[in-house]
């Protein structure tokens, strides 16, 4: 009897989880479905869900109008570059905070996080002027550095949390065996924190991929990533929802596929150390 209750409960939990999952995924699903409709079907009331004449016309128009591959390549470089650079800086920073803490470590961590509280538009003009002076307007380098700086507090915080879960005695043992600081971080700490580092990489890659303020404001024709690609299909005067949906689907497809294949790693990393 007890087992039956447990099974019922399991089924209920599964149903609840699926419902919540579908609710969260529904806007994305609706966007994908709309991308296969005509503009008239996209705004029809009552809305059509599955039973409509599916068309690839919107994808064809978007492909014809925009150089998708250039936007995609810029997104890969900007999101990938900023994430890798951020992790390279954050690993030693998080190591020192986790294993050699000082009286001010907590304050520094909080201060780092406080930089995220400043509205981005507040520093738009200074950063824009710096980019003009350095000749970095509409360049991928500027965006790699800026997005790295924006996401660095989150990367450091995440890695710090993961590193804190690793017993310091293991690192001490490595030191006693004669490992240098570099060897300790590279060959002892990093392999043990791989799930945490992987999920940090993934999460920050997604954040950088979706970042739309700086990528829209600091680019023009050359360095514009997929956020600018989507923005070019949004219009307050004219109903282009189906084309906008096709552009959005093309923009989120790579990150959706990446997330799908790495979800196990992501969940493992995010729950790392949650249960001792």
């Amino acid at each position, binding site marked *: 009897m007890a087992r039956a209750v447990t099974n019922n409960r399991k089924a209920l939990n599964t149903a609840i989880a699926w419902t919540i999952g579908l609710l969260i995924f529904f806007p994305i699903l609706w966007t994908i479905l709309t991308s296969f409709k005509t503009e*008239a079907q996209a705004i029809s009331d009552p809305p059509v869900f599955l039973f409509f004449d599916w068309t690839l016309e919107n994808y064809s128009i978007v492909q014809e109008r925009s150089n998708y591959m250039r936007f995609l390549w810029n997104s890969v470089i900007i999101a990938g570059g900023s994430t890798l650079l951020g992790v390279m800086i954050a690993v030693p920073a998080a190591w020192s905070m986790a294993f050699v803490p000082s009286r001010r470590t907590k304050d520094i961590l909080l201060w780092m996080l406080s930089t995220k509280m400043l509205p981005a538009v507040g520093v738009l003009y200074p950063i*824009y002027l710096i980019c003009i002076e350095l000749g970095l307007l509409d360049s991928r380098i500027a965006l790699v550095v800026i997005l790295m700086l924006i996401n660095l507090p989150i990367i450091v915080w995440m890695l710090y949390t993961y590193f804190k879960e690793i017993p310091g005695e293991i690192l001490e043992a490595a030191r006693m065996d004669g490992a240098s600081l570099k060897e300790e971080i590279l060959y002892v700490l990093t392999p043990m924190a791989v799930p945490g580092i992987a999920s940090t990489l993934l999460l920050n890659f997604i954040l950088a991929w979706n970042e739309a303020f700086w990528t829209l404001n600091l680019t023009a024709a050359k360095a514009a990533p997929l956020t600018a690609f989507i923005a070019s299909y*949004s219009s307050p*005067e004219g*109903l282009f929802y189906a084309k906008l949906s096709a552009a959005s689907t093309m923009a989120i497809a790579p990150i959706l596929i990446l997330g799908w294949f790495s979800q196990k790693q992501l969940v493992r990393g995010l729950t790392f150390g949650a249960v001792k």
Partner: protein
Amino acid sequence: MTLRNALCAATALGLFAGGATAEILTIATVNNGDMIRMQGLTDDFTEKTGHTVEWVTLEENVLRQRVTTDISTNGGAFDIMTIGMYETPIWAANDWLVPLDDLSDEYNADDILPAMRGGLSLDGTLYAAPFYGESSMVMYRTDLMEAAGMEMPDAPTWEFIGEAARAMTDKENEIYGICLRGKAGWGENAAFLTAMSNSFGARIVDENWVPQYDSEAWSNTLNFYIDLMNDAGPPGASTNGFNENLSLFQQGKCGMWIDATVAASFVTNPNDSTVADKVGFALAPDNGLGKRSNWLWAWALAIPAGTQKEAAAKEFIEWATGTGYIELVAENEGWANVPPGARTSLYENANYKDVPFAQMTLDSILSADPNNPTVDPVPYIGVQFAAIPEWAGMGSEIGQEFSAALAGQQTADEALEKAQAIATDVMESAGY
């Protein structure tokens, strides 16, 4: 030949070659049908001049922020910017734009519609060339009007619009007599209501820059609008902008819609509209005070003062806003798709006269005067806005109060009281 002479010769040749080199122009623009059509026809410009074009297409509000940041910092990211009637006089006064007073005779700048030219000039000098222009007008369902036993005059009054809207409304069948903008924003409900208030004798400020939202004329405007929308408007109208109303009209749920003339081509397109063959047009309504409630707007091409490619940019502007481009579009996509509202000669063209909404669009544009927009005199330029830098912020804040009143969160008079306080604060802070 000495080495020095050889170097001089090489430099001279290089400079000569450089002068003849084709440029790559970066153009910032908005995403709408006419602009996208132009992008598709750019090969014609490249063939004629050798210059190529890189487009940066953005949503209107994003574009506005993006180009403002660039031009105010002399960033040089763009060689040509698509701007509107609001920005042009303000940016020209700041010396941010290259004057377009030396365009070729072939371009025939005198052919630009006077209202457009006036709104895109400062002290008589043109600073942005109109690509297309628009006003606002009444689009109505001929079948519903007939069923209501009424006949739409070419130039209706607000009283007639109110009567017709209530007569056409059938809420049980989701037919709403009138659809108007309710979404907050200086380019949304604040634009519509400011244009509407002109016909009620209201104004944003008086000749001494003193805000006038506490006037009886404004109270009449806002109370009329809210009463009409409550009686004959669609539910949730306080979040409806151009696209939402377009969608409602195309699905046959609006009896009348007063909005941009550019919408005429959408609602009469049988591919998208279920009521394409049942649409009539009329001038925006008035109250017999000498001013109608239509606005005036143009998307225009301007050259930022910092560009290194001024000559090539002017060549592009002459190509895109000249009469040759209109013929190019007509040849490729038909006369109904040519950019409207910019040139007088278009409305004298026999082919264009067959387009059903052409004459009403022209009449609407001609009836708006940005230099003399109100019944009583005002110190600003602009019909549905005041062309001062503070308007965008102030208009958006005031729009939020109007939107809240339409949503029933406050009365019209409370909204106007707050609008007066907002405007007074802005005017005093800015030193007007």
